């Protein structure tokens, strides 16, 4: 009788401790509906002209702004977002590989509570992180006008050069 009285609070405490752990995923069949906003990126405007350049014997860099990119995070949570950039090679009379393209993001103009850090990317062959939002509290947005720099190889031929630059936000 006395032993039962002593054991009871200990068991109750142990149960509390067990229930304090993170719930493990089991049945994923049932779902509930989430309310709130989404994560959005501005629709692109274009095409963008980097300008013109006379052919030269030595490699030269041509640089131009790409126009504003706006990320709007209306999810209202504490999780951040990551913006990345990738590019195809420039097609034209002379091959200009995506590795010759670099992306320079300025510090973004932020509204709401978020720390948005800009990271320049050289070589856009694979996707590179260029803006990272952390320490987010609630809805936030960021606007930046990046510059694209292309190293035009020596002896590149005259003509029009085209590429596709992709911004991804996730």
């Amino acid at each position, binding site marked *: 009788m006395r032993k039962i009285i002593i054991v009871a*609070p*200990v068991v109750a405490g142990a149960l509390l401790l067990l229930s304090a752990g993170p719930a493990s995923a089991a049945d994923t069949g049932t*779902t*509930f509906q989430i309310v709130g906003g989404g994560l959005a990126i501005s*629709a692109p405007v274009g*095409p963008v002209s980097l300008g013109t350049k006379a052919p030269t014997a030595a490699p030269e860099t041509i640089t131009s702004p790409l126009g504003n990119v706006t990320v709007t995070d209306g999810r209202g949570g504490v999780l951040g977002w*990551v913006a990345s950039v990738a590019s195809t090679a420039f097609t034209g009379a002379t091959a200009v590989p995506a590795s010759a393209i670099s992306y320079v993001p300025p510090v973004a103009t932020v509204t709401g509570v978020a720390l948005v850090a800009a990271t320049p990317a050289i070589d856009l062959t694979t996707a590179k992180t260029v803006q990272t939002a952390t320490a987010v509290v609630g809805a936030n947005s960021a606007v930046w006008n990046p510059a694209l720099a292309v190293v035009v190889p020596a002896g590149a031929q005259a003509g029009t050069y085209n590429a596709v630059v992709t911004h991804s936000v996730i």
Partner: protein
Amino acid sequence: MRSFVLAAVLAAAALTAATGTAAAAGLASPLSSEAATGGVGVRLLDAPSDARDDPRARQYIVDHLAPGSVIHRRIEVSNTTPAAVRVSMYPAAASIENGSFIGAAGHTPNDLSSWTTLDQDVLDIAPGTQTTVTITVTVPADAPPGEQYGAVWAETSAPNTSGVNLVNRVGIRLYLSVGAGNAPPSSFTVDSLTAARAPDGHPVVTAQVHNTGGRALDMSGNLSLSDGPGSLNAGPFPAQLVSTLAPGQSTMVSISLDQQLPDGPWNANISLTSGLLEESYQARIQFPPNPGATAPVPAQKSVDNYLGIILIGVLLAALVTVAVLVVVRHRSRQKANRQLV
């Protein structure tokens, strides 16, 4: 030979050359001012009921599935621009690199993206409206165990085909763990805290964080300083560049502090969360007077407040029980004594 002009863009080349650094071809100007007011957005509509309280599950598709199982999730794709947009929808590979969740370029596939199908590939969305797309993930019966990452993208592109074409896309992350039974546990440790001073004079605390569990972590958190000179307390300061860590990865999390802070020493307490998982670590640190870093100080796990309250509760309950027992015993003895008398 005068035509030796190397143009990165063509039709608008002459115009652009004349104006120097024009950002966009003139034909795009009517849209450019309006574009700032809207865009293409995505949001998750469904999450598993058992993850109701998990903030990650409200924004990402996070699941643990047995081989052979199938899940359906709906997402809403919205157009907040003043014009109709055509949106291309597709799944693609993603990975976790340098602390960031990053989607692979274009339509790059992986196992997870090949298991993922959408009920619509191309959406024409009127201004100010939304469309719902259903994502189906079918895990093959012979799928290997482990966690995989992917993304479902909503992509828009500028209408023209020459010059630098811009493509913008926004996605929903997929974190899918495959295996029989319960999900692998999520856990992490903070191995050390380092006090440093940036070249611009700001004190910085850097934490070495290690994902010791079987699932990816999306981390956020803050740092508090206590027991400093003159019994000062400071913070909490939000942690920067804390983002995503795959199982086994470790990263440096830095927290920039106010320049007015004394050098210390301070008790630094860093509190980090990923979903429902929360851990606190502490170490005694001192900032260097000049730019540079001090030696990393091993961090100790702080006693969780929640756990502390439970422990105090258990102790109190035990004390009350002992008190009751003593009283009961005392009374029964008195009773026995009286009966004897």
